[in-house]
């Protein structure tokens, strides 16, 4: 048996990497699910109430209970909807968010895909994400859904324009689209948050708008649009939109950590390699809690204000950031 494995090192490598990939996927899903619990508990804390605290220790079992319950809910496809698109939309919402997580370099040895244009793939998949809500809103054949879907489409495409541009400063500094390379660059030269502070501001704004989290959750503004694009969804299909949103928060936290806060690098990682994952997880947790704090503290802006903020503030800001970074980088390489 052992001889056979020794004779096929490539096959064994592939197997190990594949098992690691599955582990990364399962951990992502589980973290996203428990993120719902974290959000409810933290909101409870900040709103001076308990939050879920009955099922299991600290209410940790609430997620499992909710999941079992939602699996037994009717898989209702209303007769007036466009059936195929109606089913595909939540699958896109959740599937794409999970797929994007393949690009995240978790630690030096963990992480699913090693793609040298990782950042481009991330932007491309983020661009596809808009189809989930657009198709879902249109397929529902309901006025609230259509309006919510339109809003979210306009919002997402507007913010996507400068999401990429705001990250190009990092690409210039690191000279690569490779996320691993970007982390290693930061380990050697300091975190990107300092030279790329404006890029960070623009990126976080764009990322919140693209995963349409509060305060940019206008497509789901209850007071105007009921539940927005998922008004006609129920049961697990609604659940997939819902979990997809939390996967999105985990993903955005992880990507922000990787791009601006040095990924797995931190004090003591060089001498103790096992510290890489705790550092990564800790940074991600800070961002995840930060997104919840945003929800707890900020009201929704008006729709036109939000669109104006994107086009009139963030887009010029990221262009200026891009030119400024380029000037510094070129001056460093060629002399002023």
């Amino acid at each position: 048996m052992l001889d056979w494995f020794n004779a096929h090192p490539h096959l064994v490598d592939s197997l190990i990497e594949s098992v690691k990939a599955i582990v990364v996927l399962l951990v992502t899903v589980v973290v996203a699910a428990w993120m719902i619990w974290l959000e409810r508990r933290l909101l409870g804390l900040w709103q001076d109430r308990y939050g879920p605290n009955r099922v299991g220790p600290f209410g940790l079992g609430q997620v499992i209970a909710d999941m079992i319950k939602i699996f037994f809910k009717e898989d209702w496809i209303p007769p007036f909807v466009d059936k195929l698109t109606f089913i595909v939309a939540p699958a896109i919402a959740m599937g794409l968010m999970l797929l994007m997580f393949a690009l995240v370099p978790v630690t030096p040895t963990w992480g699913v895909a090693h793609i040298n244009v990782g950042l481009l793939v991330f932007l491309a998949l983020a661009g596809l994400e808009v189809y989930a809500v657009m198709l879902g809103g249109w397929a529902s054949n309901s006025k609230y859904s259509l309006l919510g879907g339109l809003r979210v489409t306009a919002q997402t495409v507007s913010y996507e324009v400068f999401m990429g541009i705001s990250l190009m400063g990092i690409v210039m500094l690191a000279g690569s689209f490779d996320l691993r390379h970007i982390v290693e660059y930061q380990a050697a030269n300091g975190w990107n948050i300092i030279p790329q502070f404006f890029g960070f501001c623009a990126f976080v704004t764009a990322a919140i708008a693209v995963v349409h989290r509060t305060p940019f959750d206008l497509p789901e503004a209850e007071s105007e649009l009921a539940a927005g694009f998922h008004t006609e969804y129920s049961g697990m299909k609604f659940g997939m939109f819902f979990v997809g949103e939390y996967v999105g928060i985990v993903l955005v936290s992880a990507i922000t950590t990787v791009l601006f806060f040095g990924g797995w690098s931190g004090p003591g990682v060089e001498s103790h390699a096992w510290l890489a994952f705790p550092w990564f997880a800790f940074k991600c947790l800070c961002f995840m809690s930060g997104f919840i704090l945003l929800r707890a503290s900020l009201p929704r802006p008006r729709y036109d204000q939000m669109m104006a903020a994107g086009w009139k503030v963030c887009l010029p800001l990221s262009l200026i950031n891009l030119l400024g970074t380029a000037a510094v980088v070129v001056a460093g390489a060629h002399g002023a």
Partner: protein
Amino acid sequence: MAPISAWSANTWSLIVYTVAVIGIVGLMLGLSWILGGRDWGRAKDEQFESGVLGQGTARLRFSAKFYLVAMFFVIFDVEALFLYAWAVSVREAGWAGFIEASIFIFILAASLVYLWKIGALEWAPASRRPSSPSEPDSPAAKPDRPAR
């Protein structure tokens, strides 16, 4: 393309990951379809409109504003694509590349300013914008309007 036996371990992990994602999504959809109850309700076949009976269809004609935003997206995202290519080669391109990219960005910034000036980025119709006394149809420009 390399034969399958030569694919790297990372290619395999990505393939397995993608298949597993599709599997999870399919499992969630399939399980709830099998496990879910079936029930009938009087108003279940109607669109939700906050309890009001629906009028007309949801295939509405909606504001042309959304098409405008989509067009701006195409224009500025293509700009971004060119900038991506420059960003990764900024050191090699040197000052010549920097100047050329600056001209490119300047032209697009000028078009952004133009869109801004003609009000293409505003959502409210011209007559209902708060600070537009020059608009002929705004209330501020009609002093002869009787006060209420």
